């Protein structure tokens, strides 16, 4: 798909002049003419949605940075000033804050799409790995940004998360002090978090370029999961524009409607009320929870009774994604033709949601009703602690045990030879 011939012909004088000096118009034209599998469904529109999310976050973020003051004495007040006094400031801030949530909704669906259709398998490993890197950078950026309003959740979230680094044996403590710029979270911390929060989105943008470069080198996957043979290129692909610009555009409209519902009608629904209380280093909120998109990883952190073990498990939960292309032993990409794996996949999605739910609960609270069962090792069996542990076990087992084993043992269904075959039900093709 990437090796398609350039069909661009410069027409005007200035285009001809430019084409021999900086062929940027050719680059754009080739991009739009990119042959794309004709069977992409709506799960494939999240790439475009995510690109839009990044643009929205950077645009609103640059404006917010013009009004925000990264100082412990003034940060909270400057955010309130943005909300009350800056023209349209409340809208810009709500868009930025909810934009982060929308970004994560889209990225999770985008990743699950890749997981389901085997988009990480050869020859697309680098697309997936760069994608995982982007995801990790997104988490870091979102965390840094959440600290900036300097509310109670900001402060205590920063305290808890930076303390994770202190869990590393021997070097943890010096690194922790270096990272915070002092013995505790303070002005030095806030200043550097602001600096890094401004930097990382541009690093993400750079990684997005690599992500797309890898995508166009290896070629798009598709729901059938087969590579399109050379001689089928003309029949099984369509130019990216107008076919997928229109499809992506329609999906973007639907996505923006959801976005608008949050921004205009329930802007604080995904936030936490405690973050409207100025940071107080001497009072911990009764119940510290991260933003919803971090909850599954936070749950994994709490599931492990050992401090360093919990930190390792949490980073391991993201780290395991990077080696996913080598954990999956199946030759078949799309789970459409892997019924056994599909069941485990659906279970994985449910477990992910359970982990998210558990992350927001008190560990000792009972899951069902209000009764005690029996103490298993260090907690009641009917508690979120144990539900989280079972879910964590499945999370890791899915990648480390189920994926390698099912790939070797399952019997996949017959894979079609071309992507038009399932549509035409095996009959001789009569239409294009």
């Amino acid at each position, binding site marked *: 798909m990437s090796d398609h011939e350039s069909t661009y012909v410069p027409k005007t004088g200035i285009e001809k002049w430019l084409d021999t000096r900086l062929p940027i118009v050719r680059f754009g034209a080739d991009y739009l003419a990119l042959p794309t599998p004709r069977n992409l469904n709506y799960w494939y529109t999240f790439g475009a949605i995510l690109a839009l999310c990044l643009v929205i976050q950077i645009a609103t973020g640059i404006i917010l940075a013009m009004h925000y003051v990264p100082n412990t004495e003034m940060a909270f007040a400057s955010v309130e000033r943005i909300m009350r006094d800056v023209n349209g400031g409340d809208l810009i801030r709500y868009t930025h804050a909810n934009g982060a949530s929308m970004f994560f909704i889209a990225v999770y669906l985008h990743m699950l799409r890749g997981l389901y259709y085997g988009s990480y398998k050869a020859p697309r490993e680098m697309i997936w790995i760069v994608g995982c890197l982007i995801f990790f950078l997104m988490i870091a950026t979102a965390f840094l940004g959440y600290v900036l309003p300097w509310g109670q959740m900001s402060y205590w979230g920063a305290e808890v998360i930076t303390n994770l680094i202190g869990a590393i044996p021997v070097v943890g403590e010096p690194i922790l002090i270096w990272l915070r710029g002092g013995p505790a979270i303070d002005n*030095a911390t806030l200043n550097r978090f602001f600096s890094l929060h401004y930097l990382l989105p541009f690093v993400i943008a750079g990684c997005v370029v690599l992500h797309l470069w890898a995508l166009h080198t290896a070629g798009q996957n598709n729901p059938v999961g087969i590579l399109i043979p050379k001689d089928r290129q003309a029949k099984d692909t369509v130019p990216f524009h107008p076919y997928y610009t229109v499809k992506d555009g329609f999906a973007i409209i639907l996505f923006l409607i959801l976005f608008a519902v949050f921004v205009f009608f329930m802007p604080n629904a995904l936030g936490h009320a405690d973050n409207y209380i100025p940071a107080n280093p001497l009072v911990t909120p009764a119940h510290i929870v991260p933003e919803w998109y971090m909850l599954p990883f936070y749950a994994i952190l709490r599931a492990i009774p050992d401090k360093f073990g919990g930190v390792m498990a949490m980073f391991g939960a993201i780290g395991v994604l990077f080696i996913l292309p080598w954990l999956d032993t199946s030759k078949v990409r799309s789970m459409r033709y892997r019924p056994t794996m599909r069941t485990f996949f659906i279970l994985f999605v449910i477990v992910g949601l359970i982990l998210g739910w558990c992350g927001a609960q008190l*560990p000792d609270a009972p899951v069902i009703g209000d009764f005690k069962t029996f103490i298993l090792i260090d907690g009641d069996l009917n508690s979120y602690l144990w539900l989280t542990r079972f879910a964590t076990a499945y999370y890791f087992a899915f990648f480390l045990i189920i994926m390698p084993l099912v790939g070797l043992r399952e019997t996949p269904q017959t894979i079609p030879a071309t992507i038009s075959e399932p549509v035409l039900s095996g009959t001789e093709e009569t239409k294009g």
Partner: protein
Amino acid sequence: MAESVVTENGEGGDATRRDFIHIAAGAAAVGAGAMLAWPLINSMNPAADTLALASIEFDMTKVQEGQQIVIKWQGKPVFVRYRTPRELQEATSTPLSALKDPQADADRVKDGHSQYLVVLGNCTHLGCIPTFGSGDFGGWFCPCHGSHYDTSGRIRKGPAPKNLVVPEYAYLSDTRIKIG
């Protein structure tokens, strides 16, 4: 390296003077890069004014028996607790074998001032501030992830790995301490 040097096998197997120059130049560049990066990295360590706030003094007569006062030191809370005889008795009578991070109560206070416990108020798990007087052992309970501390600030139950940290401090007079 050294593509221009062709030996018999065409691979440039022997180390040549040109290889040496390549490696030496590369190593010098890496070394120079590290030397330039170090001041940038080191600038993120605590600044002089931050370190200057290293110590404070506190008048112990402000704490009543059975009470705790929280003071801020280096941006962190410090618990100063005047323990009741019963709390003190609980702390001293606990066998070391019952502890996750074994340390005698006598090693956590100053001689002749054993009723006063001075500890950093950050849970050793992930840094939340434990609540005074609650939990299963009458010391503190951390609401974030459920660590229980006893009346000596020692970890008894929950995910925290260590006892509440006793900061460096000394009695300047009978009633005045200097922390840090």
